[in-house]
């Protein structure tokens, strides 16, 4: 019987490729076919790279034929969030201002995957410049949650999460600045890992907030996430904030005993307003971990309530500066009607940036302005230190923190679009992790009454990815929430196609 190749995990596909039971070309064609079939409904991709993917797959098959695979990832179809700079392939960050921009270089994570033999099927949709929690801020229309097409996939890396959840590829990369990997992973029922700040090079990702951005993988299960992390992690001379800490063999960390693990449950992360099925599923998951031998203790992160405010000062301040380079002069879109230099700047940016991006640029500019700096940006940095200290204190007693990834499951498209503050609260449980620079992972731990996935978040010590993955893997092995795929996506005209037509 012919198996559906797109349903394979990355690890099992890699095994079959090495054993030459399947070819990279077959696997890639299956993904491209799946993409062609489902994209009208999902809109996970901004660019599908048919020709390049076929070339890469052919090259991989050549190596595999000679028994010389470049790595575990040789011949594996992957997707990249459109903030990853890719040589010769359009990179827009889902913004009009970068419409048609074709970069002259590869970022480090992309280059590492390329050297590892990965096949890039395309660039995925996201919130413009990674600013958002639903992928609705994309200048090119939203992506749709494969579990319910009327719902958002989460954001900002929504397209990558959708592509993996809907079996359009075997794994994907995203970026996480305040929850942008973990939230969509939770909403789409897959594994999303945000590594420690500095674990993966940021060279060649379109910067949103430099002190918070981090690259990480989406995968069907923890093993696949470990494989992807191992391929992209490590010091990069091109990123001075990347850590020289050696990269462990993350796959070897899987399967160990978690009997001595001390889990901390942050009191502040189980607050009013949380969807009841989320609360109950996460508590069940904690009980499951306890039954595996872990000890569980309630702890406190006293400054958790300030995380959102702190984040929206620091992230927007950095963004206001990072996005100043988009002036229409050297690349991207330039307003054609401009009469003077200042006019070129104003109109190019007016026409090129979406509402949320403008909102954040203005917020950040204000936070850094003379007379306000100390009260806003300066104060936020102090609170950031307090938030980091909260975690340090928690990790004196615990090895890992466990919490929901998001207070709710996927919400409806348009539901929060008119109310930025409500939208910002989607990240209330993920944002502190970025402020503290810690690793965090979201893994599936159940579904709500509507059958929508719920994510369990594990938070580790700095560079504690091994422990994080080990515990996530142990949980995954003891339950069967992972690897579940959404039902068939109806073929034909979907909401995404309708939006695209508009």
């Amino acid at each position: 019987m012919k198996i559906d190749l797109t349903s394979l995990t990355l690890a099992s596909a890699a095994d079959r490729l090495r054993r030459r039971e399947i070819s990279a070309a077959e696997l890639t064609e299956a993904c491209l076919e799946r993409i062609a079939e489902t994209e009208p409904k999902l809109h996970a991709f901004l660019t599908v790279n048919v020709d390049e993917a076929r070339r890469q797959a052919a090259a991989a098959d050549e190596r595999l034929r000679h028994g010389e695979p470049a790595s575990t990832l040789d011949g594996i179809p992957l997707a990249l969030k459109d903030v990853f700079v890719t040589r010769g392939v359009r990179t827009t960050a889902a913004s009009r201002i970068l419409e048609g921009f074709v970069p002259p270089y590869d970022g480090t994570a992309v280059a590492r995957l390329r050297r590892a033999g990965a096949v890039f099927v395309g660039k995925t949709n996201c919130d413009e410049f990674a600013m958002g929690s639903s992928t609705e801020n994309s200048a090119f229309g939203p992506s749709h949650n494969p579990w319910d097409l009327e719902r958002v996939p989460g954001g900002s890396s929504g397209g990558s999460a959708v592509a993996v959840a809907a079996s359009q590829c075997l794994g994907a990369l995203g970026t996480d600045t305040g929850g942008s990997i973990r939230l969509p992973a939770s909403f789409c029922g897959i594994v999303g890992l945000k590594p420690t700040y500095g674990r993966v090079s940021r060279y060649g990702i379109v910067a949103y907030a430099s002190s918070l951005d981090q690259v990480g993988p989406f995968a069907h299960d923890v093993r696949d996430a470990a494989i992807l992390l191992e391929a992209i992690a490590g010091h990069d001379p091109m990123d001075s904030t990347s850590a020289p800490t050696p990269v462990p063999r993350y796959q070897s960390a899987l399967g160990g005993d978690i009997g001595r693990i001390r889990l901390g449950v942050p009191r502040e992360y189980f607050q009013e307003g949380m969807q009841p099925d989320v609360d109950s599923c996460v508590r069940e998951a904690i009980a499951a971990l306890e039954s595996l031998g872990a000890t569980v203790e309630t702890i406190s992160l006293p400054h958790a309530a300030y995380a959102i405010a702190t984040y929206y000062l620091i992230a927007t301040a950095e963004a206001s500066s990072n996005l100043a380079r988009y002036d229409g002069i050297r690349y991207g879109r330039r307003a054609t009607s401009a009469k003077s230099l200042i006019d070129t700047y104003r109109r190019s940016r007016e026409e090129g940036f979406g509402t949320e991006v403008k909102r954040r640029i203005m917020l950040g500019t204000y936070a850094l302005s003379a007379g306000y700096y100390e009260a806003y940006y300066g104060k936020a940095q102090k609170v950031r230190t307090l938030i980091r200290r909260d975690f340090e204190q928690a990790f004196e007693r615990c090895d890992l923190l466990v919490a929901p990834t998001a207070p709710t499951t996927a919400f409806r498209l348009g539901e929060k679009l008119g109310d930025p503050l409500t939208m910002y609260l989607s990240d209330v449980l993920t944002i502190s992790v970025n402020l503290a620079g810690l690793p965090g992972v979201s893994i599936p731990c159940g579904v709500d009454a509507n059958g929508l996935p719920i994510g369990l978040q594990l938070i580790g010590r700095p560079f504690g990815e091994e422990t994080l993955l080990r515990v996530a893997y142990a949980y995954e092995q003891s339950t069967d929430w992972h690897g579940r795929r959404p039902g068939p996506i109806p073929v034909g005209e979907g909401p995404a196609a309708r939006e695209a037509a508009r």
Partner: protein
Amino acid sequence: MSFEPVIGLEVHAQLLTRSKLFCACSAEFGAPPNSHTCPVCMAFPGVLPVTNRQAVEFAIRAGLATASRIAPTSRWARKNYFYPDLPKAYQISMYEAPICIGGAVRFVLDGEEKRVRLTRIHLEEDAGKNIHDAHADASLVDLNRAGVPLVEIVSEPDIRSPAEAAAYLRELRSILQYLEVCDGNMEEGSFRCDANISVRPVGSTTLGTRAEVKNMNSFRAVERALEHEIARQIELVSGGGQVVQETRLWDAEREQTRSMRSKEFAHDYRYFPEPDLPPLVVGEDWVEDVRRRLPELPAPRRARFEHDLGLPAYDAEVLTARRDVADYYEAALARHRNPKAISNWVMESVLRIVREQKLDERLRITAWPVAPENLAALVALIDEGTISGKIAKTVFEDMVASGKPPAAIVAERGLVQVTDRAAIDGAVERVLAAHPDKVAAYREGKDKLFGFFVGQVMKATDGKANPKQVNELLQKRLRE
């Protein structure tokens, strides 16, 4: 009421690193437009800066040479503003935590020892260049200079006259050139200066409102611009007016400063710590290593030339202004120890050719008109009496032209000085015999004719007669 000016200077010195401050592009001046660029210095999406270690070391060198304190931890900051020559729309600089703190530059002005304190020295990247006159309806941007490392050296308002400002700048430039961290070329803009100026009644200790003057492209321009700006402010204040805090541009052609932007339009640069770079940590070992490798600086060398070699202050100043000239002088001196004679030859002859042939346009003179050992040999020939000083001038020109050592030229051209007393006396006798009327006139008191006789004797001996002997024998014969 009389007023005194209070001046502080900000110097931007381009560092002589091979590559730019945050990428591997060449930092060399003069390449075709935009040929020294890459995604990093063009600020493409996704790029990140990586600090050039050599630039940091150059800043440490500058700091140690000016007695600054080297900060164990300094911090990069972003200075945000929009301009086409600034691709990121922010300049990576240092703000709250510069790499060098305090220090001073000491120098001598009209025989008086001066000391100007430094506030700080920090590293930052240069911007590119906008070219407005190459195209009819567009400005062009050349980003070769974007990202070239600079140090900004900020002085305290310790300067009290335009002449003092110029002397400070000369000394500072000389120090940076000695350190080989900056070529000091003001026309090419590798050594630039802005001035903050205010005036106040003599005796007052508070500072007046200052104006910043920019666009001074030579030492002379600095002096002229400051003189002008001081006069303008004094006139304004004397007439009951007030100085406005603003930036003014020096217009060298019209010899005036004019307002560029006032305080209300001053940029809000929204400085904040650069999140793409960790704090810059400079260990004690590194500082000590740099300190050990510092060259002798201009001021101590000047003092040594004056006190140990007995040179006049003027000679010491000229010879030590450039490290390569001082090195050249000492190399010649090592071969023949006549400090003053060699000093004269270096200042009058060697440096004249250097200037004529524009050999001093680069930081280091690599090709000297004559090798220092040959110059030493030439002076030795004079001191031994082999040739006269006058003949030596001819020999020198020949050395420049042919590159030969002086002894070879003297031998080839038969320029050895005639010291044969009988031969010189014979020439003297012939000259006097040929001009009986002049001899008579001399003896009647026309002393000035003595020079005429010397000239005639030298002519008769092809200039080779020992001048001292000529004098002596002429006097003897004329007394007879």
